[in-house]
Structure formats: C-alpha cells, structure tokens
C-alpha cells in the first residue's frame, strides 16, 4: 500500500529525533544503567561530541554567542563564516575549471578518432593515479594558498567530466549529424547545434558527482596544507581534541554539499527539459 507523504515525513522526523536523543543522552544513560564493560564507547562525547555541545561550538565559531559579532569576526581570521566562504569559493573555481576543461577535452577527443587514439593511453594512465596522492605535490607547486586547493579540485573533477563528455560525444546519432549537414550545417554548426546538446545529458550525469568531488578535493587540500578553510578548521580542532568543533565543520560541509547538488540539479532540469525525466509538471 502506498504511504502518504505525511506518513513518510513522520517517520523521517521520528528517526531524526531518535538519533539526536541517543546522541545527546545515550552515553550518560547507558553509564548509569549498564555495567562498565557494556557502555558503548562509540557514544562517548569525547569522540563524537553531542548535539548540545555542537550547537554551542557552532555559536562560538560563528561569533553568534554573547560577545559581539563584529569584534569576534575581526579577532579570528579563520572564523566559521570566512572558512566556509573560502572553501566554497575554491570548490566553485575548481569545479568550474575542471568541468569546462573536461568538457572541452571530451568533445575534442570524442569527435576526433585521431586525437582519441593518440591520447587514449595517456589519459587512462593518468586516470589510474589516485588523485589524492598528488595533493602534496600540488601543494609543493602551488603553495599553501587558494591556488593549490583549486588545482586539487580541478584534478578530481577533470577526469570525471572528461570521460562522460567523451562517451557522450561518441554516442551522438550519426543520422542526426547527417540530417544537419544536409540542411547546410558546417562542421562547427554541427558541433554547436547537434553534438553539444546531444552530449549534454552525459555531461550532466557527471556534474553531480563532480561537484561533490570538487568539495572533497578542496577539503583534502586544506587538510594537507593550508592557512584557512573548513578543512583547516577540522585539523585545528583535532589538534585540540575538540570533537564538537569538528562536527560543526562537518555539518557545514554537509549543507554545502546539499546546496551545490541542488544548484546542479536545477541547472540540469532546465537544460535537459526535453528529456522525459526532467519534464516540468504542467
């Protein structure tokens, strides 16, 4: 029997409430009720903090507690807002450069057998390197600033988008190209009006994971060497064994990830509105 929307939302909220309650009080309750050996260590606030502590850390890091917003922001050059802004900015540029260059390279190699055969083995080889292994090298080359984070995100995004665009450019219907040519389209017009729109569905299939990958790339870059950003916030909190501050950064990343995915989805459903799965309800 299909459940109504209300029933589904009810269960979602119930699960959320249950998790929050266990997280907040589970450790104390089990310490009071269970023999010492059976107390679940996983719930120890020393490791996982707890919702009330996380909330307090959020207010403090975000300069929202008593003490004045402006002065607090001034006093901390990696405050939560600034760190979020830096991470988001680097994610955006890495994502943009990565996908634009991935699309360009994918179209070029997808439409030229010669280039595809020449570069094919190199691309497979480069793609086989775990990207994260390159991060220290990237930081060595580009320094501790934003550039190394953008470069890391680029590395992760490029190949994902490239491979999908490449396949998309190869899968273009030959008869559609012939039809365009018979109506007088030049090679460039065919690329612009047939190949690109047709490959777009494939491109978007990669952009959704790509935007998450860009965020991962930036955070890893910040872990390994940086002066600011959410990744730096986590590393600093770890040094002070402050689980609740790490949790704050993790939740902010979660929201960033959700927002970026929503943005890509919105763009996708507009540009691919001709496809049945993105049909706008009338």
């Amino acid at each position, binding site marked *: 029997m299909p459940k109504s929307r209300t029933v589904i939302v009810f269960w979602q909220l119930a699960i959320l409430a249950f998790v929050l309650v266990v997280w907040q009080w589970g450790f104390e309750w089990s310490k009071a009720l269970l023999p010492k050996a059976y107390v679940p260590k996983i719930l120890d606030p020393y490791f996982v903090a707890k919702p009330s502590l996380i909330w307090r850390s959020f207010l403090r890091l975000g300069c929202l507690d008593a003490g004045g917003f402006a002065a607090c922001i001034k006093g901390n050059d990696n405050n939560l807002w600034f760190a979020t802004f830096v991470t988001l900015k680097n994610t955006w540029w890495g994502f943009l450069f990565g996908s634009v260059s991935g699309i360009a390279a994918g179209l070029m190699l997808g439409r030229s057998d010669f280039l595809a055969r020449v570069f094919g083995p190199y691309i497979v080889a480069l793609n086989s390197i775990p990207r994260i292994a390159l991060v220290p090298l990237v930081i060595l080359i580009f320094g501790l600033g934003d550039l190394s984070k953008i470069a890391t995100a680029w590395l992760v995004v490029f190949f994902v988008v490239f491979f999908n665009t490449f396949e998309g450019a190869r899968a273009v219907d030959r008869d*559609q190209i012939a*039809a365009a*040519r018979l109506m007088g389209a030049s090679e460039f017009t065919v690329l612009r009006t047939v190949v690109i729109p047709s490959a777009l569905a494939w491109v978007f299939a990669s952009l959704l994971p790509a935007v998450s990958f860009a965020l991962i790339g930036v955070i890893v870059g910040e872990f390994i060497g940086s002066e600011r950003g959410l990744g730096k916030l986590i590393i600093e909190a770890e040094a002070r064994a402050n689980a609740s501050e790490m949790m704050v950064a993790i939740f902010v990343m979660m929201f960033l990830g959700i927002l970026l995915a929503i943005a890509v989805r919105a763009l996708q459903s507009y540009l691919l509105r*001709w496809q049945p799965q993105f049909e706008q309800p009338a």
Partner: protein
Amino acid sequence: MTAAQGSSLARDRSDDVAAAARTRIAVQRLVKRFNAGGRDFVAVDDVSFEVKQGEFVALLGPSGCGKSTILNMVAGLLPRSGGRILIDDDAVETGKVNPRVGYVFQRDTLFPWRSVEQNIGYGLEIAGLPKAERARRVALAVEKAGLTGFAQSFPRMLSGGMRQRVALMRTLILEPEILLMDEPFGALDTHTKLEMHKTLLDIWERERQTVLFVTHDLGEAITLASRIILLSARPGRLKDDFEVAVPRPRDPVALRETAEFGRLYSHIWHSLGEEFRRTRAD
C-alpha cells in the same frame, strides 16, 4: 536561390512541368560494392535512370536490394564504387551538400532537445535568416503540417506520425527543388501512413518538386508516384519501369478502389513477386 523560386511555399509549378521536362537527376551506370567480413559483395550493379523536372519517381524493390544505398549516393552521403550521378548536370560529390536537394530520413532524426518550431526552423536558423522572417515561415509550416498547438512541444511528446510531419516540414521549409525520401513512412501504422500520403500529395500536387522516393510498399508507390522504377533483389539492378497514369489530384483511400490501381497493382506485383521469391531463396 533564384527569384523564380519565390518565397511562397504555395507556388504552382505545373506549368513548367509541361513546358520543360529537363533532367534533374541522372544516374549513370551506378555501382556500389561493400566489403563485409573481408568479402566484397555488390549491392548496386550498373543502375542507370533519369528523373525529370517535376516527376515523382518511386524506387521500388525488396528489402536489401540497394534502393536506399542508391538514394544515399544521390544525396552525396555515401561514396560510389563506380558510375556517375548528375544533379542538374553537376556531378554529385560525396560529402558536399547541394542546397537544392532536400532529404527525408526513414529513421526519426528530429533533434529531441529542440521544440517542434525550433526543429522546423533549424535550416533557416543556420542559414542566418532574420528571426522575424523565420518565425513567420515556421508558423506557416506548422499550420500546413497540421501541428497547430504543438509548436512548443518537444518531439517526444508527439506521435510517430506527427514527428514525421515535423521532419517533412523541416526539409520542405528550405524549399528544395529536389526531394529525396528514404522510406519516410516505413515505420508508421497503416492509418497514419495514409494520412501522411494525403499530406504529401497535397503539398506535391501544389508545388511539384522533383521527387525520388524509396519504398518497398507497392501500394504506397502507386498512390504517390508518377513513375515506378523496379529494382531486382540483390544485387540491385534495374528491372522495370512503369508509368502510373492515375489522374490527379489523387485521394489515397478512394484511389485503392479504382480499376487502374488494381490493374497496376497486380501487374507490378507479378514482377515484384519474382524478386521477393528470389530474396527468400538466398
């Protein structure tokens, strides 16, 4: 384009048909060999015929007789293995598009990311026609195809018959003097097919383009054509050539009741039947 072609789609060419029956398409000793699995085989063997100004010629033959191959060579989509093809005394070059020639595919080659009006206007758009003039002509074509109310729809929302109407208008809007049609109604059900015959006859009886129409459907050939060229089973050779002296304007349904239709049908069927039996014997 010459001034005589004018801008109106509804011009009457019946006068110049009678006056100057000049040759528009000349196929001379055409040969096509394919290489499949290391073995050569002959698909088209020494085929010659001519299509005169304003003629509607059906190229009829069993499946695999090379009739579509001939059409594709006339369109310059496929290289020849031997012989010559002239369109208005100009030799056809493979890969070079002749703007006087329009081509309608059997397969659906509409651009799914373009709306009906954007599909119909494609050729005018890439020719750089001003937007206002384009919109005027597209609106006219949409109405003529009986697609009023569907101008903004995407192809996937349309039935097979409607899609083929769009494909037909997309070609006709460029006002080709010569129309090459590769079993354009082959994928449609009988009822839709008859409707499409009516649409095509209405247009052709007004505008008298020179048409080369590939089909394996004898009834369709008699309904539409003024001449039927019969090809033998593989390798495709010229087998016979029939005048279809059924008066116009023709009604695709009433036509089937006439004595002339029955006489021609059984006459050509006998000849065609031999070829079908040969195909099966292979």
